[in-house]
């Protein structure tokens, strides 16, 4: 036979062998070690793509450092027992990037192929919404750490899905409250949000809250540029022609930084105060480029907005020592999720044997605990959705210390900016936010 035919033959054989090997490697479940069997966690966040740097990787780092501390039993009380229920934690990190089909496939791989005991993860609301029915179907314990949509627990009751981090309604209601507190006579405000669910929902909640808190103020320019557009020249021009006193944005990372550079070059922030609902994640990168006077939110009392408790100081120290940059809110959210799961697991494991997903879920419902970002109450969604207090502040770059600072912090108790149990967030805002317990 000719040389080409030989090559082809070997190539085919190699391909067949490779496929067989891949198939069997994928089908194998890792052997469990002697005793006690470790708790396997799947940690999913964006490791590639534009959402990796601001959310996915800080989340992943937060997981890594907290798991290390837990395995060594070095976390502050009441988290100072080893791992979960005495067993060490083994984490597998998976990339959330790809289509929804990919996300769902990788979730099934984690649960069915790798047989993890729980999955913690997901930044994108789309991923969370897609994974939820699969988690319920497979009866797999899942904790969402970052995604902000209110739909997860409002559409249907869930049994195996939990979210310790509060959803995004809180961020925008608190933003409205802070703005009205600081600018009592505001007459006009504008918004620039990304044209997808996150941006649309953020604006809807903010607008709704403003209608209740400052009925005389009007929304002027409502802009929705494409996600990851990066170039906002026309939008900045449009805003320069507006008479608004404030600008609401839920932009994050690349888009937020691009917007800040472009608007600063044209002096927009001198004409209107900018409210950045996720600004906390960017202050360590923007530093002196972020204009003084910007209103900053952190999706909760995270980072510089957090209270100076022992557990917060511990978390900031271990994270900064390892990664050379202070933790931002995705890291906090991941830490809170892990700690919440630990409490549930420890509670369920008291009987001695390895707890089932049902037992952990039952133990998780309705718990309360103190984490680095403050007090968490699993109060909404029938005990599956957490609420915490939040805080907003004003940004200042301290020129002597050359460090970013957030001053003028106002804290909003959880029940002030979250809907009460059993009430849908959007309806609650439309109805005037009845039942809000603010001080």
């Amino acid at each position: 036979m000719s040389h080409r035919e030989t090559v082809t033959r070997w190539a085919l054989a190699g391909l067949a062998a490779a496929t067989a090997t891949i198939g069997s490697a994928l089908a194998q479940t890792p052997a469990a070690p002697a005793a006690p069997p470790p708790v396997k966690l799947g940690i999913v966040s964006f490791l590639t793509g534009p959402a990796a740097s601001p959310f996915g990787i800080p989340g992943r780092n937060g997981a890594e450092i907290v798991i290390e501390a837990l395995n060594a039993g070095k976390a502050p009380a009441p988290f100072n027992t080893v791992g979960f229920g005495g067993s060490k934690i083994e984490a597998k990190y998976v990339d959330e990037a790809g289509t929804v089909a990919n996300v769902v496939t990788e979730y099934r791989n984690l649960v069915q192929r790798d047989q993890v005991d729980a999955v913690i993860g997901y930044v994108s609301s789309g991923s969370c919404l897609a994974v939820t029915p699969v988690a319920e179907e497979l009866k797999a314990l899942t904790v969402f750490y970052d995604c902000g949509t209110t739909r997860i627990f409002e559409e249907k009751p869930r049994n195996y899905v939990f979210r310790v981090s509060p959803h995004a309604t809180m961020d925008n209601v608190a933003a409205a409250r802070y703005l009205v507190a600081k600018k009592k006579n505001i007459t006009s405000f504008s918004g620039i949000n990304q044209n997808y669910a996150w941006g649309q929902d953020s604006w809807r909640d903010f607008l709704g809250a403003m209608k209740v808190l400052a009925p005389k103020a009007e929304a002027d320019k409502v802009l929705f540029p494409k996600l990851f557009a990066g170039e906002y020249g026309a939008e900045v021009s449009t805003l320069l022609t507006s008479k608004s006193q404030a600008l609401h944005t839920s932009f994050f990372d690349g888009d937020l930084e691009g917007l800040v550079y472009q608007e600063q070059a044209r002096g927009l922030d001198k004409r209107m105060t900018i409210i950045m609902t996720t600004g906390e994640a960017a202050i360590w990168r923007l530093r002196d480029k972020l204009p003084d006077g910007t209103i900053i939110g952190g999706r909760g009392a995270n980072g510089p907005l957090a209270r100076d408790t022992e557990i917060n100081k511990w978390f900031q120290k271990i994270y900064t020592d390892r990664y050379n940059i202070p933790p931002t809110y995705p890291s906090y959210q991941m830490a809170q999720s892990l700690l919440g799961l630990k409490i549930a697991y420890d509670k369920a494991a008291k009987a001695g044997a390895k707890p089932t997903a049902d037992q952990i879920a039952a133990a998780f419902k309705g718990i309360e605990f103190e984490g680095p970002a403050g007090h968490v109450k699993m109060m909404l969604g029938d005990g599956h959705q957490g609420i915490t207090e939040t805080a907003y502040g004003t940004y200042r770059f301290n020129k002597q210390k050359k460090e970013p600072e957030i001053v003028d912090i106002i804290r909003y108790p959880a029940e002030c900016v979250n809907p009460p149990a059993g009430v849908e967030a959007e309806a609650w805002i439309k109805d005037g936010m009845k039942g809000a317990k603010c001080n």
Partner: protein
Amino acid sequence: MLITFAILTDGLVYAAYLFIVAIGLTLIFGVMKILNVTHGSFYAFGAYGAATAVGIYSNADWPAAAGFLFMLVLAMAIGLVMGLILERGLLRLVYGKDEVVIVLVTYATFLILEDVIVLIWGPQSYAAYQPMVSAGNIEIGELVLSNYDIVLVAIAAGLAGLAYWSLKFTRYGRLLTTVIFDRETAAAFGINVTLVYSATFVIGAMLGALGGAMMAPKIAVTLGIGVEVIVLAFAVVAIGGMGSIEGALVGALIVGICRAAAVHLVPQIELFVIYGVMALVLVARPYGLFVRAQPRKI
């Protein structure tokens, strides 16, 4: 009145950005008939290179103009090197094959290069804002314009002029036009088509990288900036006609102004203005605005 002026200026700035990005693509397509998806990578590498350059010169405290030039030169050098490696190393292997296959080779290369960026620069985003900030701004009535944007428009106009002049009046330019028109006949006349191909690809790569470098000070240089740019560049080239520099210019202007108008007046449709324009133009002129229909060959 103010709004009209704003729409015009915004449209011009966006058009300048589109033109710089699209001109390399249309050149490569016109000469080599290759729809180069890797163009997005050239853009991204140019942007990342610019960020690195800005890092270097701002630490060394160079004057703004020198730093800006250094940034552009470094980006073009990166484009040059990448263009050479890709053209010699990869494209040579697939020249004779079906057009679609070549497009897919460039798509595969783009995927690989996306992760190469991560390997070189890591997943975090970079800032290169110094040139934009040091350029300052000017006020025209209520509107404030960034001087950097004006520089962008000037460079785009300069590029357009340079391209037009070199195509019409230099020897290389006229060789290029001949090859675009009919490759086989050009080869029959003794023109070294292979050399023209290499040179064109490399120039296209440099222009793509230049586009990335010029945009870097305005945006955050992060993963995925190549992806968005590809579709935009393709749309502009499709509208203007493949291989036509005038087409790229006019296409960029049309898209830029339409988009600016949408943002100011009807923000809801901003998302699909560019695709709508492309669809409309293609319906009216199937080969783009500036390319006349090819006579059908029997």
